């Protein structure tokens, strides 16, 4: 028997997750355009691993299969992780990361709605700590590459790590712009000089900035659809921009500016798709602002002073720890209360 309210007006969990996946499509398209279609292999690998491991775990936990497999959340975790990994990452890297995200970070904590940490970021952090060399080895954007790999070549590389005759690893891979900047700064070069290198574009890394712009587009769609609220993207991007711009003004030789930080690394992905994960994030409006400010601060600190070129994953996970505290401390005033 139904109970009041008898009517309902919101998209279902599945529909929300599907729309977030849809919002990632422009970013994926840009990825393919910049780095070739190898990323689609990563996405497929991650998706299959996520759904398979989720199904097995649901079976062992004696939960109904279909509603949870169809809710789209495992697929979303898989996609976010695949997009955060180097596009030509070996197949086992994708599989191990996804398994960790779904099995450990999600299902063992109780499945959908119960994970205190962002599963995709847990998977990413595990891979970054375990396999730092592979994780920082990015392909050169097609436009800059000395040798072009076709789809089959990329597929072959992902599964065997073998390159076609005459092509060396150096010819197709390089450090990411954030990594490059960090290394060059250690070699006493100034930001102004470093940014003249060919890996940098108008805003961030060449190629990277296009992908970031496509994520921004998808993010605006999520805002328009009211899937996410403005608080987290705004606070994250604004804080990161202010920190970058401020430090750049204070010391232009040591710190890159706002545009570079916003359009490099995982900034845009984080602002609209990662930090906005509702399950592992805060729920109050002020809490969201606080959370996103913290993520941006930690990201900038790790990028500027830490041991890793990008800091999004660690920043998000560290702020995930603070969520219960943030929520408790930012309860809004209830109607009729002082």
């Amino acid at each position, binding site marked *: *028997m139904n109970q009041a309210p008898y009517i*309902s*007006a919101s998209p279902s969990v599945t529909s929300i997750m599907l729309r977030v996946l849809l919002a990632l499509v422009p970013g994926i398209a840009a990825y393919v355009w910049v780095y070739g279609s190898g990323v689609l292999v990563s996405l497929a690998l991650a998706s299959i691993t996520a759904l398979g491991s989720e199904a097995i775990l649901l079976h062992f936990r004696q939960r109904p299969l279909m509603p949870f497999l169809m809710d789209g959340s495992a697929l979303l975790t898989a996609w976010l992780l695949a997009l955060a990994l180097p596009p030509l990452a070996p197949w086992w890297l994708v599989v191990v990361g996804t398994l960790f995200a779904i099995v450990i970070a999600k299902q063992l904590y109780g*499945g959908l*709605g119960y994970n205190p940490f962002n599963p995709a970021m847990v998977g990413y952090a595990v891979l970054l700590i375990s396999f730092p060399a592979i994780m920082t080895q990015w392909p050169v954007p097609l436009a800059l590459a000395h040798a072009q790999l076709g789809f089959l070549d990329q597929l072959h590389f992902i599964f065997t790590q073998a390159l076609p005759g005459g092509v060396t690893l150096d010819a197709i891979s390089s450090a990411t712009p954030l990594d490059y900047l960090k290394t060059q700064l250690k070699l006493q070069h100034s930001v102004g000089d470093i940014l003249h290198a060919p890996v940098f574009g108008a805003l961030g890394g060449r190629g990277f900035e296009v992908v970031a712009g496509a994520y921004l587009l998808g993010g605006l769609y999520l805002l328009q659809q009211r899937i996410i609220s403005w608080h987290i993207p705004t606070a994250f991007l604004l804080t990161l921009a202010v920190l970058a711009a401020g430090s750049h003004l204070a010391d232009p030789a040591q710190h890159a500016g706002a545009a570079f930080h916003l359009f490099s690394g995982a900034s845009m992905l984080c602002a609209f798709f990662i930090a906005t994960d*509702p399950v592992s994030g805060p729920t109050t409006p002020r809490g969201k602002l606080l959370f996103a400010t913290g993520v941006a601060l930690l990201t900038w600190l790790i990028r500027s002073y830490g041991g890793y070129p990008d800091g999004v994953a660690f920043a998000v996970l560290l702020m995930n720890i603070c969520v219960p505290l943030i*929520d408790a401390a930012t309860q809004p005033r209830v*109607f*009729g*209360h002082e």
Partner: protein
Amino acid sequence: MSLFKFHGGVHPPEHKLKSTAAPIRSVTMPLRLVLPLRQHVGNVAKLMVAVGDHVLKGQLLAAPDGMISAAVHAPTSGTIAAIEERLIPHASGLPDLCITLNADGEDRWGDHQPLDYQAQEKSAVLDALRLAGVVGLGGATFPSHVKLRADDAHPVLTLIINGAECEPYITCDDLLMRERALEIVRGIEIMQYLLGAKHAIIGIEDNKPEAAAAMRLACSQNSISITVATVPTLYPGGGAKQLIKVLTGLEVPSGKLPTTIGVQCFNVATAYTVHRFIDHGEPVISRVVTVTGRVAQPGNYEVPLGMEIFDLVQAAGGTADDSNGLVMGGPMMGFNLPSGHVPVVKGTNCIIASAPALFAPQPPAMPCIRCARCAEVCPVNLQPQELYWFARADNFEKARSYDLFDCIECGCCSYVCPSRIPLVQYYRYAKSEILASDKARQAANVARERNELRLARIAREKEERAAKHAERAVGARAEAGGDAKQAAIAAAMARAEAQKAEIVPQNVTDLSPLVATEIKAIDARRGKVDDRD
């Protein structure tokens, strides 16, 4: 006038047009009426008739019992056929004591006349209203005479009349305002006089332009100052606290009455019944009910209280084939009737013949993903997702500390929940568990206090006996010796005795009658024992 906003709110599809096409229709007086003794908030009314009695229309059948209670009257003339437990329109589906009245078909009024309310003491008018069965007809059914009593400590400056009718489907107030605006305004005038309120504001949602226009016209023909304010259509803008906030910008403090901020709020239909009683002497024996949903002739009907809802639905042309039940109230806060064979009561504002096409079957709930859409729409600015966790974990103290009891159960949270969690049901469960444990704790406290009292009394009586013995000994010695020192000792002991007598044991003020009688009985028994020795 400037309006204010409350947090959150939702815009469900209105579905009001299908029941506003026709004017208010009357129904044929049924052969049998069933009148529950409790159609209001408060004590069950006291029975004033017996089976076999012949009663006239408007005659008092059950009188209010105590302050918060309301009377029940005969909606037509006839014979009392039965007084027994019957199924009533309540979400619990439990039966309650009801009077069954067989109509004699004459519909003959008893003695009734208008009340010259300005020629009498206000308290006499309020007593009369109490006996007229006037209760809030917006759905809360709280006895109105209690709310109409002017209180010098909290004078009412603004009288707010609720014509918002924010729930989808329901249009009985809309039609009443369209057709009986002058009568409503007259009722407001009487209420304003009783409360001594400076002005009155009628709040009507802007999806009822005809009603607002009719009320404006009626107000312009009346000398007192009444403002008609159209407020944005936003559920639950018709909640008393929400409407007060929108119209005055003031928030009723949590756990307090609106009078603490100088406001009192009544429904338009309640104002109408006040007018019917004061100007015509008619108690509350009928009301306008919206019958809508999957019925052949949706619309509003003036229905005698006690009419079987099944008969009312038949009067509206009967239900469609796909109809699978009857809902009383609106789709946001209403409930499934246990059966169609229950009577229309004072709180029956709307009957919806439901169908799967109207109210889709609710899918199984998914886990909460903490999206906080519920918090965005909560008109009380609660954090429904947190309350849900606490209620689910039976963490009731935490739920209470997150202001569970400020929840008005409007259903906005469930309405927007992507996981389709029946949140309101969780809050009701938590509230009832907390109230039950409070009650148990209170009972334990009473028992403990009683025991402490008993121990204190035993100690006191022991001292008194000792003093008495000492006094006797002193008296004997005084008789024997009679010197001044002995007399001084006797005087001092008498003073001490007097002081002791003045000591009042703690916790004997504010005793419940039950405890007080019990103490008296124990004292009496102990007195007998003392007499023996």
